[in-house]
């Protein structure tokens, strides 16, 4: 990736002469460049910007799924937003979502994904293919099917896990709802991190590792002083992507439906419950606005980290 996007020699000369990037590296001219990006921008506008603005607007109305407010929503200003941020449910869900992101994405998927990539880095042959195949299979299967399998695995009375452990009747999804969905999501999403780190490790020059080994560096020292500095950008990009994905992930609903008593009601599930189950679309849109802001903060945080030491 890094090589493919580095500018050709000509441009570098150009830059040194003018003391900055050329504004027209490809030599297309303003009009044709605009024509090139127009379709993409249009798609982004229609499918990303417009819905986001629409959510902002809906959050200011009392729009409902049914009843008079469904036919003629009224403008209520910031009422929804104030109600959303003053109810404890939202902050409870935010806290659960943080646990979910930290537990399943930042710790679970990253650590497991990196470990698999590191252990498999020099291997070839059937073992590597089998491990990678299984991990990727967990990632590409449709959510509905996967969660059905996990419900069958964790069910209290007839679950496979309880049958294997010999503890029939232990209600995993009721007694440990967060732990269940964290392990589920770690299993589900590890493939992305594994593949990304697998590719990143290929970029670490073998000669550096060799020199470190000759200098007597232990396994951990090699990782810390040679490998991590090389793949720092990959780690941050990976963290950014999987944090945002996990933050907005709805599949925990398929396992626990947010229960029992809201103990696994992560934000995505909370919005669904408010907007669609209770039918308060306006209130749900206000909650979505809060989520949008949290997502922006997370994204800015990672992007700054990514830039800070370039």
């Amino acid at each position: 990736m890094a090589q493919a996007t580095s500018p050709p020699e000509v441009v570098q000369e150009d830059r040194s002469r003018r003391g900055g990037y050329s504004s027209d590296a490809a030599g297309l001219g303003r009009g044709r460049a605009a024509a090139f990006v127009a379709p993409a921008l249009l798609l982004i506008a229609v499918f990303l910007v417009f819905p986001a603005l629409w959510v902002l607007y809906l959050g200011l109305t009392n729009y409902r799924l049914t009843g008079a407010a469904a036919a003629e929503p009224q403008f209520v200003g910031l009422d929804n937003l104030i109600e959303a941020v003053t109810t404890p449910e939202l902050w409870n869900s935010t806290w659960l979502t943080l646990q979910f992101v930290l537990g399943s994405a930042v710790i679970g998927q990253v650590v497991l994904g990196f470990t698999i990539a590191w252990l498999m880095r020099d291997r070839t042959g059937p073992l590597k293919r089998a491990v990678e195949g299984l991990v990727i299979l967990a990632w590409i299967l449709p959510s509905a099917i996967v969660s059905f399998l996990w419900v069958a695995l964790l069910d209290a009375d007839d679950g496979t896990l309880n049958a294997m452990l010999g503890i029939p009747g232990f209600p995993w999804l009721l007694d440990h709802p967060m732990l269940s969905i964290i392990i589920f999501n770690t299993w589900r999403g590890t493939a992305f991190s594994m593949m990304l780190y697998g590719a990143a490790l290929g970029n670490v020059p073998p000669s550096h590792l060799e020199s470190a080994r000759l200098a007597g560096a232990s396994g951990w020292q090699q990782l810390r002083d040679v490998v991590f500095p090389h793949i720092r950008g990959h780690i941050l990009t990976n963290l950014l992507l999987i944090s945002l994905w996990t933050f907005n992930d709805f599949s925990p609903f398929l396992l626990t439906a947010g229960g029992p008593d809201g103990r696994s009601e992560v934000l995505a599930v909370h919005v669904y419950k408010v907007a669609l189950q209770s039918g308060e679309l306006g209130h749900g849109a206000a909650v979505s606005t809060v989520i949008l802001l949290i997502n922006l903060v997370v994204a800015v945080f990672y992007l700054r980290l990514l830039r800070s030491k370039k």
Partner: protein
Amino acid sequence: MVRKRSMSVVAAIAAAGLGLAACGQSSGGGGDTVELTIAANAIAGGKNSASAEHITKWVIPKFEEAQKAKGKDVTVKFVPSGVDDEQYKTKLSLDLKSGKGADVFDFDSIWVGEFAEAGYVKPLSEFVGPEADSWDGWAQIPGAVQEMASFNGKKYALPVGTDGRVLYFNKTLFAKAGLPADWQPTSWQEILDASAKLKSAGVPVPIQLNAGTAMGEATSMQGALPLLAGAGGEVQQDGKWSGASQPVKDVLGLYQKIYGGGLGDPKLQQEAKGRDKSFQQFAEGEVGILLEGDYFWRSVVNPKTGVAPMADRDQTVGYAMIPAIEPGKGIHGQDFVSMSGGGVRTVNPNSAHPKEAFELLTFMLSPDALREETKDGNMRITPRTDVNKEILAGDPLLTFVSEKVLPVTAYRPPLAVYTQVSVALQEATAAIVSGTAPDQAAADYQKKLEGIVGGAGNIAS
């Protein structure tokens, strides 16, 4: 190259959009063939399996046949669902909101108001024609049952059935406590007395009266609302909602006597599956008295098809009418009270063939169709008195409900905000179970109510 790819992406998305639109289309209008769809929260082998099979195996072939005899080519398709009522409601609302949905669909009568206010359903006579009002079946449907399918005095749907609530009791436990097998309390005090006797006879749960939010609408329908009717109150009367009124305080007071006095099991009210568990405990002979609808008799303790079957149901399970707080103190000066709900079925205002769809609607409520639907132990109270007389004779409880309970029953206000008020009421009972005093819980309820119904002006206390 880039541009080409983007264009093909656009084309693909547009194609997908068209495909989706085509999928959502309820019925085609082309040619002489009339295509109709029926949606219900029923699915063969799952939820309400019997009624799904009745539709696919009897209604559809017979209706198509009858239409063919009249020279019309009609094909009917069934769109099954097998999900929670709330999810079915969400799906239905989204379908109707986007101007799509099945031509004929079933829904809970309590949604009539909010669907009508949203414009999702319309008065039948407005788009079906005068035949909607002149249908001969109306004469067989009692006024209160018609009311379930109406909103602001207009008929939006046809009622599919109704139910009533009674006090069930375990005759074996009653004998142990020295109580009569033909028990019929005439005041709340008599219920409390019987519960106390059951308690001293060692019955683990003397009385189960649904409370709390975990049981959802079951707390309102099989708890707070029938009691409120018994205390002479209604959740909404003459356009005003009852706040911290005396009837509300009386109801919460009774909850407090039951759950504060060790006559009921407070934990059971908080568990996620508390209601199912209470059914199980009743079937196992651990619950003395339980307030439920006829559903309990038909589908819970039914020895053949119940979820908590009792082989000796007919001998062991007794039932009594729910008394007012004191004789003559119930709503409309009644001695006994009940609450009723039920399903309704209507024609989608977006249907391309409203007349044929309405014919299908009435066909499904013809005596023949109802007789066919309720045979082989699938007994339920149909909306038609003529059919009920015939089919309910074999079942003592359903006869009791239809003859004694339905004449004194009451219905929930068919308004959109009702569902929110109901949750507030459930929260008030939850507060009592966890130890709050009735007056405090009533005051909290009134406060919440003000937020829901738009200020103190809409509340009578």
